[in-house]
């Protein structure tokens, strides 16, 4: 089993989701009417606000809970969240920046080889599952890390986990398993 230290794999974080609370009630209509990049969704009871600088979309509920998606790193998520809070403050609400937490991180990674999914699934039952009728990728869930990895036959992986460190650990964890069932790519 080849240790993963020898190969430098690029793990690219594509999405970071974070939540925080403003600890005050927000009037969605005011936000919708006075903000620049907002979309009001009355049937869902929320307002979508999109920021440009860190590219972030935030869902704002009237209870004061806000979910930020679209950031590419944890720091960016925090920064975007703070900007958002500042904007709301300027609109006149007494917002406070409380309970900020990164909830989900999505990353993609590409292996230099193709993978035999059926072999992989057979070896790693029941942690891995593969249903070609439903989804082209095999799903591997690591319970201890609470991470899910989707493995495609071309060698690309999609990893989701609660933070960036978990994602890196998950990739390291799964690399040897994938290496066993590889098929070299004919580039």
């Amino acid at each position: 089993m080849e240790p993963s230290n020898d190969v430098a794999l690029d793990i690219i974080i594509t999405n970071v989701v974070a939540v925080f609370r403003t600890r005050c009630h927000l009037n969605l209509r005011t936000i919708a009417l006075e903000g620049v990049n907002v979309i009001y969704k009355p049937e869902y009871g929320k307002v979508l606000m999109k920021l440009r600088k860190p590219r972030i979309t935030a869902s704002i509920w009237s209870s004061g809970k806000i979910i930020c998606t679209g950031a590419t790193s944890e720091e960016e998520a925090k920064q975007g969240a703070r900007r958002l809070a500042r904007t709301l403050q300027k609109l006149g609400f007494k917002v406070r920046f409380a309970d900020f937490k990164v909830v989900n991180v999505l990353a993609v990674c590409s292996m230099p080889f193709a993978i035999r999914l059926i072999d992989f699934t057979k070896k790693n039952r029941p942690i891995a599952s593969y249903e070609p009728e439903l989804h082209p990728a095999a799903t591997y869930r690591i319970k201890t890390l609470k991470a899910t990895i989707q493995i495609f036959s071309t060698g690309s992986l999609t990893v989701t986990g609660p933070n960036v460190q978990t994602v890196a650990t998950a990739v390291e964890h799964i690399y040897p398993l994938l290496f066993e069932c590889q098929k070299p790519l004919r580039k």
Partner: protein
Amino acid sequence: MSSRVCKNCGGTDIDVDQARGDAVCMGCGSVLEDNIIVSEVQFMETGGGGSSAVGQFVAGDGGNPTFGEGFYTGVGRESRAQTLQNGRRQINTLGHQLQLNQHCLDTAFNFYKMAMCKNLTRGRKVVHVLAACLYLVCRTEGTPLTMAPFSCFSALNSLPRFPLQVNVYVLGKTFLTLARELCINAPAIDPCLYIPRFAHMLEFGEKNHEVSMTALRLLQRMKRDWMHTGRRPSGLCGAALLVAARMHEFRRTIKEIISVVKVCEATLRKRLNEFEDTPTSQLTIEEFMRVDLDQECDPPSFTDGQRKKRLKLLEEELEKKIGEVQGEIHEYQDEIEMELEQSRPKLRGIYASYAKTGRTQRLPDALDSHEREEEELKDVAEHLNRDLCDQLISGEEEEREGKEERPPRRGPSLASLLGPMPTAASLGLPESISKCIGEEKENDGDTENGELDLNGIDDDEIELYILNDKEVKVKTELWLKQNEDYLKEQKEKQERIAKEKELGIYKERKPKISGSKKRAPIHASTADEAIEKMLEQKKISTKINYDILKELNVKPSTSPAPQTAESLKGATPGAQRLTGRYRKPANVPLSLGTPLSTLGKSSPELHRLPLESSSTPP
């Protein structure tokens, strides 16, 4: 029991006569018991002259036998037993539709019982769980069934329901959860299993076997060429069968294959194209049957990705070259213009601004020359420092210009290239640098007291996110107009609630997700009326032509045959009683003569008499 010792004489010699049902003491002759309940098998004569046993078969798991004809919910029946019986009934019906043998159905029922024990049925529709159990059985047995037939059920419950079409993905999710919880490892589907089944459905006649063999060979080739991972097996089978059929001179159109295999045309075409890309497709038929190429291809999605990457690289290179050439051209252009300016000194002054229109390609009146310079410098900074400044400055630029078009990117003017480094840009930089490099300190105090840390947040920029008063007014108008309907609805709702509050009958009503309303029994004088009323009550199906339905004659014999299965299932579930046990959707005519009162009640056919299920004794 008193039959051991006689009460009168104390003797133990008791004669029990089963025929008369007496227990008599042999010593003193006193009758101890009369009308003893016997548990013997009795026989009676059947119509044909043979004899059959009297009694009912009871299921081994202790489900109560039903008494008489109706679906009699006896007193003291457990909910669990009821659910299990319900489930068993449905599994049997559905299984017979799909032609599964009794063993499979029993296994499926066992799965269902296990699922109940683990509370997997909570929060899920019964039909979904049942379908998942059946599918699990099929997978473990290796029966070649795709998920598609499972999703075409109708829910045969005690209440006549609208036919449910289970979404394949919902079914899949349930199936996966089930397999995981019950720790059952379902082996992966091999598309080769489906070939005989689909070939049979395509009716190749005598050459069935040969075509199947060819298709199997093709499929194996596809596997080696990595076309099968991550794809639906039915799509591959369809493509293989199509080619195999053509190879053996059978003309099967794509439409026929699609109806059998249940994939869409686009998928089939794609598979065929992918197969075309492989080297095997170049072989002739005889060669293919003899020779097996060693070379394995890459997965098609990978080759696609590589191709896109290459194209992208080429494009980028091209752009770079264009950029360079453009830069050169602009240099020359600027040089020429400088020369021209020098040779036309009288145009300075008030006409200077007009002369410069051609150079800038923008409305010169709108912009100050100072601002223009700043913009130039910004463009330079962009060009030179793409990564850092691009977003920051372009963002600001966009804000400032507002609705004006962004000026097309020009190469740096000579003056600014040779002159001092752009100052405006360098002013803009420190801010972004401090933001990106010198990260804000993590304030634990942040989360404790919830104070907002303003470090690194540019207030001015945030000002831009907020509209001023006039803009607010405009937006309010637009928004109100856009959301008129919703606002009206809300107002009405509020009024309604207020009224009810006054009357004191207001209740917090949560919207019910499952629409199982108790329907009032339909009272109608004629069949037509009843149909109309029923159609109003039930959800409208898109597959039924209601106009024709209403025009139908009441006579059952003249009812037209081409009705979809859904309409049959939805319209008259009571019809099954007349046509027999197993519903073959295509053959059951719509019989309007069935008493519509059965629609409001449970369908008696659905209840299976235990006698009938004893056809294969356990």
